[in-house]
């Protein structure tokens, strides 16, 4: 029995509450990330001077170290630095001493030590690549994985089932850099069907965009499709043994209706959840794919940032990833409420 709550509409209440929680969550994530990268080194004995001297060419003179310290505000207390960071996101931030300032417009996620550039535009320029990669792969794996999973579940024990589940196991087990390199070796060099994998913006040439992304899509989707096929299969098997499926059959519904309207609909609900989470967590898969295929998206940006120990870049990308995960979670929860009436409260 649902409590028929008075206004506001429960779904809206739910979304508003989740949005507010999201903001708090992001602030907490930013604090933790900030602490990890700025507080821990200090606790471990790293001096501000040592930190600053990492961003200078070798043999830093004291004067040069001091200049860097000032530019990056490393000499200020940590809470002040954190406050500046937050303020930068909202208001933008001026860097550098003197009057000629490097201005980092909002949302300013900091200023890259190494590249001497604001972090945000650099991340934004990687977004189209990562989004193209993620979107294409997601569609591919969702459609492919679910289709294979459904067929496997309905033909449990057949050759198709065993074969596709075997391939799925391989897909789940094989790392992207392995499948990716194999794909490159085979289809880019040996038989150059998809040579020269390079990102071309969709707006520039949609055909080339798609052609050049086919291999990365397949490689990334392979990993997830495998997972989704297994999940869908398990979900379908479970759902098809549910009592309400028996009821649907007892009503005399045609088998197709039973499978798709009653079975798949319910089996997809957990898939939707996992799908949302995976989209949010996709950065991990994107990193490997982008590194393997040398696609200049957020993943490569992250790798570059870590290699250079460029703290503002790492912080920025961590926050962006957290943001995507949180948003994906929110979308999933809302979707869930739409899909499953039991969740609406």
């Amino acid at each position, binding site marked *: *029995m649902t*409590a028929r*709550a008075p206004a*506001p509409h429960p779904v809206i*209440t739910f979304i*508003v*509450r989740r949005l*507010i929680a999201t903001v708090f969550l992001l602030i907490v994530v930013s604090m933790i990330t900030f602490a990890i990268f700025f507080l821990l080194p200090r606790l471990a004995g790293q001096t501000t001077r040592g930190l600053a001297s990492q961003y200078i060419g070798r043999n830093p003179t004291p004067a040069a170290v001091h200049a860097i310290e000032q530019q990056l505000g490393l000499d200020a207390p940590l809470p002040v630095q954190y406050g500046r960071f937050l303020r930068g996101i909202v208001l933008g931030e001026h860097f550098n001493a003197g009057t000629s300032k490097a201005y980092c417009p909002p949302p300013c996620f900091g200023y890259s030590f190494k590249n001497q550039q604001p972090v945000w535009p650099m991340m934004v320029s990687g977004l189209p690549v990562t989004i193209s990669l993620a979107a294409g792969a997601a569609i591919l794996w969702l459609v492919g994985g679910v289709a294979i999973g459904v067929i496997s579940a309905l033909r449990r024990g057949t050759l198709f089932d065993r074969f596709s589940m075997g391939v799925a196991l391989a897909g789940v087990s094989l790392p992207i850099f392995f499948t990716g390199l194999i794909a490159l070796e085979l289809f880019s060099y040996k038989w150059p069907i998809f040579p020269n994998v390079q990102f071309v913006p969709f707006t520039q040439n949609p055909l080339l965009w798609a052609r050049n992304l086919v291999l990365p899509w397949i490689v990334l989707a392979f990993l997830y499709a495998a997972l989704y096929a297994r999940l869908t299969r398990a979900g379908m098997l479970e759902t098809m043994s549910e009592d309400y499926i028996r009821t649907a059959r007892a009503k005399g519904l045609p088998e197709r209706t039973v499978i798709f309207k009653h079975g798949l609909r319910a089996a997809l609900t957990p898939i939707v959840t996992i799908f949302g989470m995976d989209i949010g967590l996709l950065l991990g898969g994107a990193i490997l794919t982008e590194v393997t295929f040398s696609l200049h998206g957020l993943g490569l940006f992250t790798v570059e940032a870590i290699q250079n120990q460029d703290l503002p870049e790492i912080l920025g990308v961590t926050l962006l990833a957290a943001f995507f995960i949180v948003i994906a979670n929110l979308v999933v929860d809302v979707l869930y409420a739409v899909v499953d009436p039991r969740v609406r409260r």
Partner: protein
Amino acid sequence: MSTPVSTAGTAGAIGGAGDALLEVTGLTKHFPITRGIIFRQKVGAVQAVDQVDFSVAPGQTLGLVGESGCGKTTTGRLLTRLLEPTGGRIMFEGRDITHLSMGKMRPLRRDIQMIFQDPYSSLNPRHTVGGIVGAPLRLQKVKTEKGIKATVQELLELVGLNPEHYNRYPHEFSGGQRQRIGIARTLALRPKLIVADEPVSALDVSIQAQVINLLEDLQNELGLTYVVIAHDLSVVRHISDHVAVMYLGKIVELAGRDQLYAAPRHPYTVALMSAVPVPAPVRVDGRRQRRERIRLSGDVPSPLNPPPACRFHTRCWKAQEVCRTQEPPLTELIPGHRVACHFPENTAASAE
């Protein structure tokens, strides 16, 4: 049959608190309901258990009966302190255990044990029977004379299982045997009080009888005290010395078993009993007939917002204005028989 035991906890407790193994006074459990966009405010409470009084004498069985949502399971969890009471008092062997901390409760867990409904899910499938039954001994670090294994095998024998099956896993046993394993585990620490929540409702009819007999035999042999929670009035009748009928978190009637079943006083009890199908076909002229019964209309109201005063008044055929405005107290109409009703049934007739 048995001698009358104390039936109610408050002032009228027969024989005083000293006689009762367990005495419950004004026991209350509310689950708060919250609402709000940012700050969750308490907007109400599910009154799962509300001002419940009863006591159980050593070696006796109290049956708690009622329909789903009446608060009987919550009461059981409060007694074993799996839940923290909102109000009231629980005395065990004269000691107030209402708000004992986890640490202080630990030694008492030896004395108060619980049996669960589902013999499938309450046993860890990865542990052997020996491991399951012996676990409480190890957890409580009990020193046993002959070692844990011998003790466990004795327990298995006691509940009618083959001691040789010490090393088998739960899935190798049938439902009834699993419930026996659960009982053996419960008995490992030689408890004084066992709270059994629907101990037989998941079992087949022919097995139910075995387990019910086992519980009775163990009680005779070991002097156990039971609080049996069940929805099946027939089972409760068989196993209990005293029976408390609950409705929407309250005890509406509390009496000795024979008194209650022979002459239920509360209209709800009467309706409940009349609803139980009886395995004796009614035939007139060779055609089956519908048995006469009191038909209650509608569903049990939500415990979130229970009806005021007498909670049963919305479904009661005898309800009058007073039932809607004044809550009937649980009073002792005749010795050992307490009823919370303004217009009790079976008053003219003598109770046995």
